[in-house]
């Protein structure tokens, strides 16, 4: 671990009213790492991801991205979000724009690329993920799996240093989950740094460089996937995994 971490979270606390959703999170993510956040619904996974993208403002603690403190007043949200891509559970594509326009909006308006540059880069990306033919379509003409892949491409088009994936397969029909996970797997292979919240334990075991188990806004256990998923030490992790395994089958 010679290089400094891409992302460094220290003592992060986030409250919604009286409720403490994140209660002192410490987390480091280095380049090319894939960190899987697991834990029950309401354990704080999504809120953590949103904080990392400054979509939520923490109540205490620091988040450093590439050595820059995000709480610094000089750091504007838009700047952070150029470096950090995010994909949502419900895709959140822009329904009034074609697939191509969804993908090029950020590069053109935020990165100020020329239309030609943005379009050709977008078409390359869409091609890479088997969506080349869908460029002119509107989101409502696509399946859920295709929409989510477009959402991933939209995030990638900004050439982020870090990609946040928030339960991106939870809204999909089971038969469509595979195609989306394959995309993430390919990204992991190509060295993309990712933090993802997921309920897909097998997938986490396959692609994660580390797994983080959250409960009640705290990191209960973290480490390599084999360790956390197969030999959990904390009782809460055991219960969660057992319940999950029973549920899965």
């Amino acid at each position: 671990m010679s290089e400094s971490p891409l992302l460094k979270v220290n003592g992060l606390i986030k409250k919604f009213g009286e409720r403490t959703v994140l209660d002192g999170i410490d987390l480091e993510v280095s380049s090319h790492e894939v960190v899987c956040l697991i834990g029950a619904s309401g354990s704080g996974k999504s809120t953590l991801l949103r904080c990392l993208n400054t979509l939520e403002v923490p109540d205490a603690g620091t988040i450093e991205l590439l050595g820059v403190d995000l709480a610094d007043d000089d750091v504007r949200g838009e700047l952070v979000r150029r470096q950090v891509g995010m994909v949502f559970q419900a895709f959140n594509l822009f329904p009034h724009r074609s697939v191509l326009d969804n993908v090029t909006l950020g590069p053109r308006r935020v990165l100020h690329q020329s239309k030609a540059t943005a379009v050709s880069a977008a078409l390359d990306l869409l091609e890479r993920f088997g969506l080349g033919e869908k460029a002119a379509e509107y989101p409502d003409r696509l399946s859920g799996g295709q929409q989510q892949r477009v959402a991933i491409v939209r995030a990638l088009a900004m050439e982020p240093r870090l990609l946040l994936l928030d339960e991106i397969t939870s809204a999909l029909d089971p038969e469509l989950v595979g195609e989306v996970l394959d995309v993430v797997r390919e990204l992991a292979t190509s060295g993309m740094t990712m933090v993802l919240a997921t309920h897909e334990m097998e997938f986490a075991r396959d692609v994660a460089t580390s797994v983080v188990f959250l409960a009640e806004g705290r990191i209960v256990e973290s480490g390599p996937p084999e360790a956390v998923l197969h030999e959990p030490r904390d009782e809460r992790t055991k219960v969660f995994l057992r319940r999950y395994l029973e549920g899965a089958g």
Partner: protein
Amino acid sequence: MLSLASVFLLVFGIALVFLLSPGARSFGHFFLSPHFFRLAFFGDASESVPPMWQAFLKNVGLCLVAEVLVLFWALPVALLRMSKSALLAGPRLLATIYVDLARGLPLILVVLAVYFGFPQLEIPFISNGTWFEYGLFCLVFCYGAYVSEVYRAGVVAVPYAQTLAGQAIGLTKVQILRYVTVPQALRIVIAPLINDFVSLQKDTAIIGIGAGVIEILKAAQINQGVYFNDTSYATAGLLFLAICVPLTRLAEHFQARDQQLRLAGSIGVPA
């Protein structure tokens, strides 16, 4: 085939009721006479009866100008109503009272109050308005409230997730409004907006109660007074229908398109 038969039966049945009614002949003469329709529509210079199509142009002109003004006037009202700032609490309350008043008062009462009340105030600017200015005031006053609510609903209807998605690719607040929220709100708003405009168009007839000018209602009344025939009212009805029915269809078209679009970008809707 079946649908055709169903339509035919219904139309035929209704026509039959009218045709076989004891007063069919006199009803036809007094309300649907082609002769009096021609006289009403084109006017009759020898009896100094004004042509109704010309009178109708006054209504059309009034509604066109009113619609443009309403579009603008409703915007600050909607923004105020949606504002959360403590600083704007006063104006916000005012806007709320205005919307309640304007939506609660029948237009005809507003027309009477404005046309007969304003001149009595003897305030220079307010008391010597033309019929057109007073008409604009009444229509914009009443419809501004409705349209402001339409705006409000449109903005609220764009899911917050869309704003999040815009933020996530680094768009600024203004860019999100421009490229993400407002275009979608416009689509949502366009159908209800046209509906309100159809209604506004029709309500220009009410202006005739107060306005001392020969617009469609007055023209119809003059016509009726000269010939003792009510076909002029049917003529007025046809003129309104000629404008309002296509507008309504247009609204339905937009509504259908919007429905289709709104399905997109949300959870799991395969093609």
